[in-house]
Structures are given as structure tokens and as C-alpha cells.
């Protein structure tokens, strides 16, 4: 069971690197979608006996993260008529190196943390840190709003991974709440992206510096 989870976490880490290294927005969205589904599957694998609430949440997570959000993002992308991240402030190769370095650092950090013995062998903690870092690198390094939304989603996936450590004690309703927040957030960002596009003919957030303070 644990090896299956580790496999999925490894997949998520690999998708992190794909998202970091790709300049095409559809592949970034695709990576986020697959990562969301992989993460959504985990509660089912972690719970030894079948629990219908857990199953419901897992299915819901997979549906929202794997289908609803990617569809929304693709639609925003088509409306905005952009395909590529053209001039990232952190280039793709440096992003990849940062992501790889971040993953190694996450493993090292996870070793240094005083974890419970049953979590010690799991990749959940390093995977969570690596995803959070990847999310931050995308948020900082990309200028297109859609790429930033993807970064935000990966960041949230990392937090979700960390939350899975507590799956036995925390009610999954909390996770469901996070999911709801996220969906609303993506809706709002979709609307904003649309508005930015109409108002400025560009989705480059680095040009949106005038309305500060």
C-alpha cells in the first residue's frame, strides 16, 4: 500500500518538473490535471478499510482537479488566445534546476524533521515540500496569469499532500472545504483573466503594476 502511494508521489514530483520545464501552457495544464487526479486517488490507497465518505471525497477531488479546473483553464486560455509563456522572469532551465534542487532539499528537510515512525518511510512529506516549492517557483517565475494559476494549484496540491498525513485524525470535510475554496478561486481567477484580457489586450501580470498600494 505504502509503495503504491510512494509511486503516486513520485509521479507527482515528476509532473512538478514537467510543469516547470514546459513553455506550452496546455502541457502545464495537463500536468496539473494528472497530478490532481494522482493526488485525489491517494486517500483511497491510504485508508485500509473502505469508507464511503473518503471515497466520495476522492472521487470529487479527482473530478474537480482532473476535469473541472483544467476545462476552466483551457477555456480561459482559448478566450485569451495564448499558448505559450513567452518571457518568464525565471527561465525554464533555471526553473527546472530550482525544482530539482528544491526536491533534493525537500528530501533532506523531511529527514531532519521529527516525524512519526509510520510516516518516516513515506515520500509524502518530501513530495509535499517539493510541490509547495514548485508552486512558488511557478508563481514567482511566470508572467502569464494562467501559468500562475497552475503554480497556485500545484502549491495547493502540496498542502493537500501534507494534509494526507493527518487523514486518520482530521475529518475529510476540511479537505472538501479546501477543494471548494480552490474551485471558487479558479472561477474568480478565470473571470479576472477574462477581464484583464479585455481591458489590456494582454495577460502579462508584470505589466499590471500601476494600481499598487
Amino acid at each position, binding site marked *: 500500500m505504502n509503495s503504491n502511494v510512494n509511486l503516486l508521489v513520485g509521479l507527482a514530483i515528476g509532473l512538478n518538473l514537467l510543469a516547470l520545464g514546459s513553455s506550452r501552457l496546455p502541457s502545464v495544464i495537463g500536468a496539473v490535471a494528472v497530478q490532481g487526479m494522482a493526488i485525489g486517488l491517494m486517500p483511497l490507497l491510504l485508508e485500509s478499510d473502505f469508507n464511503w465518505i473518503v471515497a466520495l471525497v476522492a472521487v470529487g477531488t479527482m473530478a474537480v482537479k482532473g476535469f473541472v479546473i483544467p476545462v476552466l483553464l483551457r477555456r480561459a486560455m482559448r478566450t485569451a488566445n495564448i499558448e505559450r509563456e513567452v518571457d518568464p*522572469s525565471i527561465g525554464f532551465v533555471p526553473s527546472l534546476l530550482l525544482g530539482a534542487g528544491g526536491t533534493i532539499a525537500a528530501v533532506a528537510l523531511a529527514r*531532519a524533521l521529527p516525524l512519526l515512525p509510520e510516516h518516516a518511510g513515506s515520500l509524502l512529506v518530501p513530495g509535499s515540500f517539493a510541490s509547495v516549492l514548485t508552486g*512558488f517557483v511557478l*508563481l*514567482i*517565475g*511566470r*508572467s502569464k496569469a494562467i501559468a*500562475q494559476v497552475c503554480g497556485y494549484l500545484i502549491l495547493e496540491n502540496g498542502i493537500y499532500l501534507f494534509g494526507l498525513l493527518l487523514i486518520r485524525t482530521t475529518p475529510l470535510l476540511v479537505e472538501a472545504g479546501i477543494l471548494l475554496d480552490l474551485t471558487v478561486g479558479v472561477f474568480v481567477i478565470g473571470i479576472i483573466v477574462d477581464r484583464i484580457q479585455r481591458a489590456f489586450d494582454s495577460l502579462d*501580470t*508584470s505589466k*499590471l*503594476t*500601476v*494600481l*499598487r*498600494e
Partner: protein
Amino acid sequence: MTPGPLLLGAAAGLAAGVVAGRWNARVWLALTLVSTAAALGAAGSLLLGGAIWEFVSTFPIAGQPLHLRLDAVSALFLALVAIVGGAGSVYAHEYWSNQDYPQSAPRGRMWWSALLLSMGGVLLSWNGLHFLIAWELFTVAAFFLITLERQRRDVRAAGWLYLSASHLGTMCLFAFFAALAARTGSWELGPMRERTELAPLFWLALVGFGLKAGMFPLHIWLPSAHANAPSHVSAIMSGVTIKLGIYGLLRTTGWLPLPVAAPWILIGLGAITALFGIAFAFAQSDLKRLLAYCSVENIGIILIGLGGALLAVADGHAVWGRLLLAGALFHVWNHGLFKSLLFFGAGSVLHATGTREMSRLGGLWRAMPWTAALFALGAAAISGLPPLNGFISEWLVYLGLFDAVTGRSPAAWAAMPAAIILGITGALALATFVKAGAMIFLGAPRTAAARHAHECGPWMRGPMLVLAILCVAIALAPVVFWPLVARASGAWQPMWTEMPVPASLFTLGSLQIALAGLALAAGLTLWWRARGAGAPRHLTWDCAYAAPSARMQYSSGSFAGIAGGWFAWLLQPQRQLRRPRGLFPAIATRVERVPETVLELIFTPVATVILQVSTAVRRLQHGRLQYYIAYVVVALAGLGSIVVLGGRS
């Protein structure tokens, strides 16, 4: 009648004045006069022997229970606020009328009421937090009064300088009261002399209150603010609001234990303030700027008195300590009265001629006899000449200093130089006001503006007359006013309660009356002779120059030339000279300007560095979301490493 209802009435009247000032000038004037009269009544009843009025309410304001208290020290200052506040409101009725300033006159009335109300709040608050709130309100109200004529650039600059300097002071006061509250566990104020660990807090209070009082070298905001404000505002700023700085220092020194060096520093700062203030005043060519610097000088005299009194408390010399404190307190009143009178006079000149530049005036006494006479009276009083009230307070300070010197205590080392510097200051003050009076009112008019001057109307003349009468009253009957000041001294230092009238004050009072009689007789004789025969008019000897003009009279710069030279190291005058060349020189000019030395040579460079650093830091705030997220990551990483490393060690 007890002070309570009177104070309540005054506060209600002023609060109504804030509203009424917007729409009706006469209603506002009536409200303000009734309120100030009520406040004066409350202060007077307390000073004349009434019991201390106290009001404690459990109803919290800003989280603190309201605690108001009127004792003799507050009452002394409250009386000054009421007198100058009332006089200024009458003066403004004509000087800043709706006809002349339709935009700013209603605003001015509103803020005037707010200023008086908040100053009353400062004087009555017995809770540190409420004190700070009232203090900040009164600073802001004064800012809006200074910038009434805000379409002028120099007025705005003066306003901003005042506001930023005031906030530097307020910051120190915040630190002071907050530290006090933190160490005593309560915002309540009051005597706490036994808590010796509170002594270092005095330095914070010294900077905060000293800045408001205009103590050298923190006076930088004062000249431009007082010169550019409307004259009735200058009058209350110079006469009253800077005294609230003195009030704060009086309270602090009366309540808290002091560092050993504090009295010496205070007396030294007082001497420096007095001397440098008058040196700058003498060099000014702008009448209101001259008066403003002269306020700095008078604050110096008050500080000498206060510092000396503190030395006396520390050494246990009640006799001369009382004299010095009484001199300082008397000077608070006297300076408030005659400085307001002088600023009203300056306003009258400005109203009539449109200029504050003394070298453009001259010969105004023919057109403005009332203003000239009242200004001369104020000038004689501020120069400390007998038989006027400035002499009384300075004489008390001198007497205290001389007693300290002859007492051969260690305090003599401070008292002797202070007395000498006070003497030099007095001489320079006399020269300054001879210059001001002569430039403005004597000689021939130098410009068309001065030729077409006109006397001010009754609304402006009336308040000046009232202030002049008060000056003369204090001068001729100091014995009558002594008990009032003595009560305030008793409230400041409980051991000094029964303070008999010094015997010499009786002698001085009679002498003043005799001198006043002589001066009056001489004046009447001169007037009678001049009226009978007419003053003979001759040209001055002019080296046979064929076309003398009024501009060839002494200018304010040439009058102050010699003494200006003595202080050139301090004043750093900037001169531009273009000598006449050739046999028939066409152009020759000489421009001399006295800069704001302390501001331009010390504060501006420091402020520039601070501004550069702030601008560099401000680049972090650029509006790029990506970098903001990066800041969050860096901060998180930093916090995390602190936790990890801190956990290890």
C-alpha cells in the same frame, strides 16, 4: 461658581463653534467669546483660591476612564488660552473676514474652535492616552490654521515642515507616555517622584515638549510656520501653543524624578535658546519672522527660570528657586500677552500694506497711530523695559539668578553664565525692537504701499487694546498677580505652597507706577508741544547729494549690520555684491540673506540621507506580484531557518 459647569459650558460652546463657524461668523464669535469667558472664569476662580476641580468618570474613552483635573498649573495656562483665544477670535472677525477670504474664513473659524478645545483638553487631561489624543488634535488643528492660505507655495512648505517636525515630537511623546504606562502599569498621570527608575524618560519628554516649545536647536519649524500663518494664528501659536510645550515640561519635571544632569542641561539649553534666538531675530528683515525668532528667545528665558528652579529643588534652596519659577511662570503669561499684541500689530501692518518686509515700510505712524502706539508698547514690554510687564518677569529671573550666585552653592556655576547671557539677550532684544519699530513706523515711507497705508478697524484695534491693558496691569500691580502665580508654584512643588510676596516686589510695583506716570507725563508734554507748534521738518545732511529719496534711509540690514557681524559664525549670512564700476556706474546691487542656518545646514542634509534610504527601500514596493510572492517565500524560509537553528541550539 465651581469650575465644573463653567468648563462644561466652555467645551460645549467651543464644540458648537466648530459647527457654527462654517455658516455664521457672528454666532461663532459670540459662542467663542462666551466659551473663552467661561474658561477664564473657571481658571480665575481656581487661581483666586478655589479648590482643585476634579472629574473622574468610569465611562471609558479609547479604553481609558476619563479623568479631568484642573489645578493651579493648568489654570494658569488655561487663562492664557482663554484670553488670547478670545482676543484672536475678535481680531479674526475683521482680519480674516468672510469678505476678504470667502473660502478660508469659515474653515479658519472652525479650526480655531477646534484648536482652543483641544488645547483645553491637553491642559485638563490627567490620563496619558487622552493627553496624547488631545495633543495630536491640537497639532493637526494648528496645521490647518497655518495653511489657511494654502494656495501659496511657501505657506504649504511651512505647513509641511511644521507637521513633520511636530510629529517627530509627538513620536517622542508617544514613546514617553507608553514607556511610562508600561512601567507604572497605568496611563494615569500624577506625582511619582519616588520611582527613581523612571528618571531617564525625562530626555524623551524634553525632546517632545522642547520641540513644541521651540527650544534651540529644535526650533526649525517655528520661524516659517509663525511667519506664514495668518497673523491671528501666529499670535496664538507664538503666544499660547508653544507654551503648551513649557506646560508639558513643567508637568514632567513636577511629577517625575529627574536625572541629575537635567536641571543643568535645561538651564544651558535655555541660555543657548535665548541668545541664539535673539541673534537670529535681530538679523531678520521679515517682521513676522523676527517676531517668531523672538519667541524662541523668550522660551529660552522661561527655560532658564525652569532649569534654575529645578536646580533649587535638587539642592533644597527654596528662596531663589521660588523666584526663578515665579519669573518663568510670569513670563509665560507676559510673553503670551505681548507677543500676541505684537503679532496683532504685525497683522495690522500686513493688512494695511500687504508686505512683511520691513525695508519696504516706513513712516507708518502717521497713517496708523493706534497700531504704532500699541506695537511700541508691546515692543517695550518684550524688550524687558520698565515700567512694563516684561521687566517684572525678567527681573524675577535675574533676582533668582543673583541670589543663586551669592548663595555660593554649586548652582552658581550655572546661574552666573545664565545671568550674563540673559543680559546680552536683553540688550539684543532692545536693539531688535528698536530696529523693528524704527523701520516700520518711523522715517519716511519707502514704497507706495507704505504711503497708502490705513489704520485698522475697531475689531482689530479692540483686542490689541485689551492685551495692552493687561500688559500694563501686570506691570503696575505685580503684587496683585503674585498670589495667582504663587498658587501655581505650589501646585508644581508642594513644599513651596506658602509663598509670601517678596518685599522687593512692593517697591518695584510703586517704582513702576512712578515710572509709568513719568513716561505718561513726558509723552503728553511731547504731544502737546508737537500739536501746538508742529514738529519742524528738515532734510538730513546728505553730503550735498542732490536727489535724496526715502530709499536712502537705514535699511533693516544696515541697522543690524554690526551686531550681525558678531554672530556671523552662527547666522552664516549669504551676500551677493555687485560693486559700482566705472565713472558713471549704472547698476550696483547688494543682496544679503540670512538662511535658516540650523535647518539648512544640519536638518536638511540629514533629512536628505533619510529620504535617499527611504527611496531605495521604496523600490521594494513596485507592484509586481511575482516579487511579492518571492518576498513571502524568502520571509518563510528565513522564519523556518530561525525555528530550525533556534531549536538546535
